[in-house]
C-alpha cells in the first residue's frame, strides 16, 4: 500500500533548530518562524530554564522533536527509560513527530555522542527494522529517521545507503527525515551521486528536510552545522523539493551560531529554490565550491555537540 504523503503529517513550512543562545531573542520578539525543532535530549530531563523556555515556545509554535541518542542501530538493548521520557516529552509538547538518525551512538553501555554509521546489509536491515518497530510501539507514533552524514563505509556493506533506507522505511513503516546536506556530504566522502540518491529515496515517506552548513577539509567534508548552506546543497534541495513536494524544511546551525535573524534569513532562502527550474549544475559532487570554506583543523567537530550551559548570577 502506498502511504499517504509525508505519512499524513502536515507541511509545517520553514523552521529553525531551537538553540539556547537564541532563547532571549525568541521570547522577546516571537519572530515569524513557522515552527521549531528541538534536540530531544536537551529537554527530556530538564526541570530548569530550557524546559521553561520550551513550554513558552510550544504555546506559540509547532514543535518537532529530533534526537541524537536513540541509537537505533546499536546492538545494545534499547533504553526503555530513555524511550519513556521521550514519549512523555512528545506528549507534553504535542510534538508534530519524533525523529532521530539511522546510526548507533555507542555499545557496551557507553555513549560516544556521535552519529556512527552501520554496515548496510540484510542482517543489519533486519536488526534495525525490528528495533524501529519496538520504538514505534513504545512511542505510539511512527518514528522519523534521518540519513546521517558519514565518514566511513564498511567492507560488510552489500547495498548502498539509499537502498538500505528505502527498504528500512518500507519494512518498518516509518518516516524519513531527508537531510539534503548530509546527502551531499556523504556523496563527496563516499564518491556516490547525490542526484541518484535523491531520485531513489521513497519520496512519499519524506516527512521533513534538513538543511545545514558543513566544512570542507579538502579531502572530505564534515557536517559541522557551523555556516551557511552552500550552493550545491541548495540545488539538491531544489531537486528534493520537486521530487517530494511540499515538505517541512528545517535549518540547523549548531556551532559559531550567529544572531537569530541571520539563521532565520538563511532558512527563508528556501523559498528561492521551491517551484523554480533546476540549475544545470545540480548534482555536482565536486568537493570544492567557491562558497566553501576550507578547514585544516584535524579536530573539526561534526554535529552533534548539544550541551546547554548553566546560567549563573
Amino acid at each position, binding site marked *: 500500500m502506498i502511504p499517504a504523503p509525508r505519512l499524513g503529517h502536515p507541511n509545517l513550512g520553514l523552521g529553525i533548530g531551537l538553540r539556547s543562545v537564541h532563547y532571549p531573542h525568541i521570547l522577546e520578539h516571537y519572530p515569524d518562524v513557522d515552527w521549531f525543532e528541538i534536540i530531544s535530549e536537551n529537554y527530556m530531563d530538564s526541570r530548569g530554564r530550557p524546559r521553561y523556555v520550551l513550554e513558552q515556545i510550544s504555546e506559540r509554535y509547532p514543535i518537532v522533536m529530533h534526537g541524537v541518542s536513540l541509537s537505533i542501530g546499536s546492538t545494545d538493548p534499547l533504553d526503555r527509560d530513555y524511550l519513556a521520557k521521550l514519549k512523555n516529552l512528545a506528549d507534553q509538547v504535542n510534538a508534530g513527530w519524533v525523529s532521530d538518525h539511522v546510526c548507533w551512538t555507542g555499545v557496551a553501555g557507553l555513549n560516544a555522542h556521535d552519529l556512527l554509521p552501520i554496515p548496510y546489509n540484510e542482517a543489519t536491515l533486519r536488526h534495525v527494522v525490528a528495533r524501529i518497530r519496538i520504538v514505534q510501539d513504545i512511542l505510539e507514533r511512527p518514528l522519523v529517521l534521518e540519513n546521517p552524514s558519514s565518514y566511513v563505509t564498511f567492507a560488510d556493506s552489500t547495498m548502498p545507503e539509499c537502498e538500505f533506507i528505502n527498504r528500512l522505511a518500507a519494512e518498518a513503516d516509518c518516516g524519513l527525515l531527508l537531510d539534503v546536506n548530509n546527502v551531499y556530504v556523504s556523496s563527496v566522502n563516499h564518491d556516490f551521486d547525490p542526484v541518484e540518491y535523491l531520485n531513489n529515496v521513497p519520496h512519499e515517506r519524506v516527512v521533513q528536510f534538513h538543511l545545514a552548513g558543513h566544512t570542507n577539509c579538502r579531502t572530505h567534508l564534515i557536517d559541522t552545522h557551523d555556516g551557511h548552506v552552500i550552493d550545491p546543497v541548495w540545488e539538491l534541495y531544489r531537486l528534493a523539493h520537486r521530487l517530494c513536494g511540499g515538505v517541512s524544511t528545517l535549518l540547523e546551525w549548531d556551532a559559531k551560531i550567529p544572531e537569530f535573524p541571520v539563521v532565520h534569513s538563511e532558512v527563508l532562502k528556501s523559498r528561492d529554490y521551491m517551484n523554480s527550474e533546476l540549475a544545470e549544475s545540480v548534482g555536482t559532487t565536486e568537493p570544492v565550491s567557491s562558497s566553501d570554506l576550507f578547514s585544516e583543523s584535524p579536530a573539526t567537530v561534526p554535529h552533534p555537540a548539544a550541551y546547554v*550551559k548553566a546560567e549563573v548570577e
Partner: protein
Amino acid sequence: MNSQQRDLERIQRWMQSVIMHPDGAAAGVESKAARDQIDVNSRDVEQVVSRSKNLTSLERLSIYGNAYYARLLECLHEEFPALHRVLGDDAFDGFALEYLQAYPSESYTLSNLGTKLPRFLEETRPARTVDGPDWADLLIDVARLERAYAEVFDGPGVEDDQLLTADELLKIPQDRWPDVTLVPVPCLKLMTFTYPVHEYASAVRQQADAEFPEASPTYLAITRRDYIVRREQQTAEQYNLLGALCDGVPLSQAIEKSCRHIADSEDFALALGVWFRKWSVAGYFHRAELAAD
C-alpha cells in the same frame, strides 16, 4: 562484498575501541580491545572499513577518533569554564582526556558528562606535600562548584511556587518553635569549600580578570531563582543552622544545636531575624510545617 559478514556487535565494539583510543585510530586498531573483536592490524584495516577516493581507511576512522575527544572536550570546557581558566588549555585538556578514559559517558545526555569529574580529581590528586590546603584542593573545589551550578540550573526548581516569606516565618510565636520545621526548596544546595572559589568562578563567567583565591573556609548556599543559579556566602553559624533546618530539625532545636556558643549573646535574636529575612528573600524555604497539637 564479503562472503562471510561479520557480526554487527563485533563491528561496533571494534569501532568503538578504535575511535575512543586516546592515541588515535592506528593505535586503536592495534589495541587488544579492538583485536579481541576483529583481529586486523592497522595495515589491513581496509578489510573492515573501505577506503575512499581521497582517504585511507585509517584516515577515515581518524575523523571519528578526533571528533570523539574534541566534541567531549568542548562540552567540558562549557561546563567547567573556571576550572579551564585555573588549569590553562593544555593541563585542562590533559585532565579531561584522562577523565574521559576513566569515566566514559554512559548517559544519553551530555548534561551528565561532567558528573564524575570532581570525584576523578579527588581520586587522582597527588599526595600532599604541605600542611593545609594545596593546589589540588583548589581544583577540586572549583570542579565541585561548577558541577553544582550545572545540577541546580537544570534540576527541579520552585519558580511557579509561593515560597515562605520572612513575615510568615517571624509571625510564628516563639513558644511554637520547638514544633516548627522548615521545608527547603529542592534546588537548595549547601556546600563547604576550602577556597572562596565562587568569586573566582563568577569572574571567569563574566570574562573578567581573576586572581587565584587564597585558601579560606567558605560556606555557600546555592539555589535557583527565575531560572538563574544564585550563590550566597554564609558564616559558619549560618551554614550550620541552614544545614540543621534542611535536615528537618525543628527550629528551636536547630538553633540550639548550631548556634549554642552565640545564642546567649545580646545581639543574637536580632541577628537571627536578619538571617531569616535574608534567607526568605533568597527563597531557601518552601514552607513551615507545624507539628500537630
